[in-house]
Each structure stands twice: as C-alpha cells, then as structure tokens.
C-alpha cells in the first residue's frame, strides 16, 4: 500500500478511537441528571415487572406487616378477624398513645378483606385516605394507624 493510504488509515484509526471516547462522554453527559418521576409511577418502576405486580394484587394477601413505626418488622397472618388497638384483647396490640383501645378491625369475607374503623379518635388511613365506611383492601395496600404503617403482603 502507498504511504499516503497508510497515513490516512492511521489517522482514521486514531480519530475513531477518540470519537469512541467522545461518544462515551456524550453518554455520560446525558446521564448526569436522572429523570424526575412521581412516587406513584415508582411503584411500577420499582424492580418488579408490572404484570406480575398486577397479578399478585388480584390474589388475597396472606399477612399484615408493620413497615414503619415503633413495632416495624412485626407480621401477622391474615384470614381470621383481627382487631387492632391498644387493649390487651386485640389480636394486634400497638403500644402507641395515638391508637385507640379498639381502633380498627380487618375481616375476610366474600373473597376479599375489609377494614373498618371502630370509632377511633385519630382515624384509620388506607393508602393515606381516612376511611369512614368499611373499605375493601388487598395486597399492596397500606394501612396507617397512629404512628404505625402496615402493608398487606402475600
């Protein structure tokens, strides 16, 4: 090959090498700031595929897990009626001044779980909405009572 071709190929290779680095730099530049999304969308984006999550949501929850609050980590099986409150005869006793003696009840019937507020002082919240009537709940819903947040899991 003629020398001029060799020189041309050599320069072309070095240019390609640096061009590759420029492409990488461009990719890094578009990666500096993430994208802002709402927490609601995040539930879908978080790790698990959407279809799986939807399917799971159709099935009945198996347990109630306290995710936040003084007793975080505690789980309780669902199925039998559960009364949540401060009194000793409750199935789930929450030692919390913001929880009423008999605060709320979760019961199962007709293929789904229902939570009802038993006239508590500070209310029962399902997915951050205060409930006034018995409300249907399923897997993935959150329940807040006093300082504790609970999650229904399979």
């Amino acid at each position, binding site marked *: *090959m003629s020398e001029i071709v*060799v*020189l041309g*190929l*050599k*320069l072309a*290779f*070095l240019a*390609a*090498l*640096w061009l*590759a*680095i420029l*492409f*990488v730099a461009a*990719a*890094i530049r578009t*990666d500096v*700031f*993430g*994208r*802002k*999304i*709402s*927490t*609601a969308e*995040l*539930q879908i*984006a*978080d*790790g698990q595929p959407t279809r799986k999550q939807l399917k799971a949501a159709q099935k009945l929850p198996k347990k109630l897990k306290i*995710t*936040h609050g003084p007793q975080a980590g505690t789980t309780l099986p669902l199925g039998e009626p559960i009364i949540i409150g*401060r009194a000793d005869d409750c199935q789930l006793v929450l030692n919390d*001044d*913001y*929880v*009423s*003696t008999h605060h709320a009840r979760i019961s199962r019937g007709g293929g789904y779980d229902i939570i009802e507020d038993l006239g*508590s*002082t*500070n209310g029962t919240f399902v997915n951050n909405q205060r409930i006034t009537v018995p409300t249907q709940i399923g897997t993935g819903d*959150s329940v*807040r009572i*006093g*300082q504790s*947040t609970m999650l229904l899991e399979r």
Partner: protein
Amino acid sequence: MDEVVVYRQRRGIEAVLLLLAIAVAVGGYFLIHLDIDAELPTEWPAAVVVLTTLALVAHLVIRWRIPYADPIILPCVMLLNGLGLAMIHRLDLGGNERMHSAELQLGWTAVAVAVFCAVIFALREIRTLNRFWMLLFIFGMVLLLLPLVPGLGVEKNGSQIWIRLNLGFGAYSFQPAELAKIVLTIAFAAYLAGTREALVAAGRKIMGVELPRLRDFAPLLLMWLASLAVLVFQKDLGTSLLFFGLFVVMLFVSTERLLYPILGAALFAGGAYAGFLLFTHVQTRVLAWLDPFADYDRNYQIITAQFGMAWGGSIGTGWGLGRPNLTPLAKTDFIAAAFGEELGVAGLSAIIMVYAIIVARGIRAALGSNDSFGKLLASGLSFVFAIQVFTIIAGVTRLLPLTGLTTPFMSQGGSSLVANWATVALLLIVTHHARRPQTAKPRDPVVNLASDETIELKAAA
C-alpha cells in the same frame, strides 16, 4: 405528589457503545494485517464473531440480572480488552516465528466473561457478603502470602508472586495476588462499614492526634505488616504498593481523616527506602529509572521501550509498522510501550482516558450509593484499579521506577484478565444498587411538622 429522581436503565446506549468499542478494536486488528500483508487474514470472521458473542453475552446478562447497572463501564472494558487482543496478535506476528498467544488470550477472555457472568448471578445481593468479612479477610491474607509456601511459590523475574499448581493435565501457574485484591477489598469494605464510627470517635489523644482503640485498629495493622511481608519476602514492590495503597485509601474514605494518607505515604516511603537499601532487585529498578543509559545491557528493556515510544512520537508508527517486539515482555509488562510506539501519544493517551473513565464511573457509583458498604466497595475497587494502571504506565513511561504489575484488560495473562473482569462485575453490581429507583419512605407523621394531620393527632383516651 412526592417526586423522586431516578436513573434510566440505558441498556440501549450500552449496546451501541459496545458495538463501537468492538468496531474500534477490530479496526486495529484489520489495520495490522493491511499494514503488514495488505490483505485481511482468512480467520478474521471467526475472531470477530467470538469477540462480539462475548460482548453480547455480558450485555444480556446485565440486561437480565442488573438492569440498572452503569452503561459506560462495560463498553470501556470491552474496548481495552479488544485493543489488548489486537496488540498481542500484532506482537505474535512481529517475532521471528509466528506465535499464537492472542488466540490463547481470546480463550482467557471467554473464561473471564464467564466468571463475570457467574459473579453477577451469584453476588447480586452483594450486601450478604457483609457478614463474612472475617472469613474473607483471612482468605485474602492466605492468598496474598501463598507464594511464600515452599514448593508452591515460583520465582519469576526476581519476584516471588506466582504459584504453580500441578493439576492432572499439567502445570498451571497464576498470581494469587490478583484474586486477593478483590477478596481483601470486599473484606475491608465490610469491616470499615461496620467500624468506621468507632475508628473516628473512640480512642485516646496522643500529642493532639486522636488514635483509635487498638482492637479497632488491629486488622489494619495486620494489613500493613502483610504488605511489608510481600515487599520483603516476595520482593515485589508493585504488589506491596497496590495493597498498601488500597488499605490507606479505604481508611481515608471511611474516616475522612487526612492523617491516614499522610501517615501511609510516610510509612511506605520508609519501607520503600529500606527495600532500596536491602535488595539489589529494587536497586536495579531504581537505577534503571534514574539513569537507564548508564548500563545498556542491564536496562535493555526500558531503553528499547523508550526508543520505541520516541519513534512513535505524537501519532505513532501505525499498527504493525513499529518494532515493539524488540522490548522483552512486550506482551505483558510493556504492552503500554507497544501502544505508545504504534499509536503514539494520541493513542496511548486515549487508552489512559478510557481507564480514567472507568475509575470515574466507579467513584460516581460510590457517591451515588446509599449504604456505606457499597460506597466503600465501589471506591476501593476503583482505587485499586487506578493505582494499578497508574503504577504500571508510570513505570513503563519512566515517571516512576518500574514495578511488575499487569496493565488491566490488556496484558497477556489469564489470572489478571479474569480477576479484572470479576472486579468490573462487582463494580457493576454496586452501580445497579446505587442507580435503582428507591421507593421513597413514607413520612413519619410525628416528625412531619408541616402536615396538618400531625396537629390533629391527640392522645386517645
């Protein structure tokens, strides 16, 4: 509605960059043959297919198992690995007789990618390693000191850092320090993540400097002694510097105290000077650095490398048109010199840039990580990588005395390649955890003073 920042997965851009990296490496491979024979070799489709398949496998495993991993690191690694393969192939052609070490290296690349995938499968939940730090620490130490065992260690080029295993199908030698590097980084990260608070807080003040309690400090002291043992008994300055540097940097990152790097530099300088006085092996290296031309025969390697790089100049002689084979060990220790000769300053600095990008992405992952183990692991792995690249390229270009470390992903050699791919797998796992969208914690109603609900709360009767 609350908003959170998430990173996109960006697997598409990774695939595009991977193809670009392979294109550049294959371009180098083609240019070698065009420059030497003016035609392409008959086996080129096989080589290209194998390399592309390996990249594809690594990419798909990332897509499947750790979809949020950093998209930049894998293409950079593939580019370096491909260029290394091309240069080894070029050196195979340049010798008096045709050699086939590039084919062997391609085989090792396949093994390395397999290990890479295995690490991603096995250690995706990397935090589980946290519990076994003591075990990992002991294992790492044993690996590091293994070449000192009589009958197992082999002396090569003045250093005793290799072990030879007699397996059924023949002798196989490897550098256990390459594996020890990874194991000890994990052990340090787990140990320091647990004790960093104690290292900063507890302890007595002596001469205005707060010293940590001895029991918090013992593993670190042990590490210092081990790196000294490597220096004294294995006579390897490079490995010793690598482990000591790793240990000092991780201590500095976890405690944020400037005392440690200063103390570490002083201790190492002392150790290195003692090594210089005691060992002729170290003296040779230092004299070859200060004045190589004083003894042409002894410093032949470093002198030919210098001549080669001078000949290469700013844009190099071109692939296949230099004479990098004149330098002994051109495929391993001096591969950077071969690049300097044939691609010039423009090419060698591009390669160093790619290394810098990998390190920068690693440190970015450390910053983005939300647990101290991940932070320490990512910074440790990137620093060990940075120290290694700096030490060997500085040695080849005569900025520092030469130390026998490998150039990651480029040097010929199986244990180094496999270990570095495993390091990258760990780094990618950390980036996956760092970049994955985190579910925002629901606010604790008692702490949230802005919310009206809190004020409504009153003690139930």
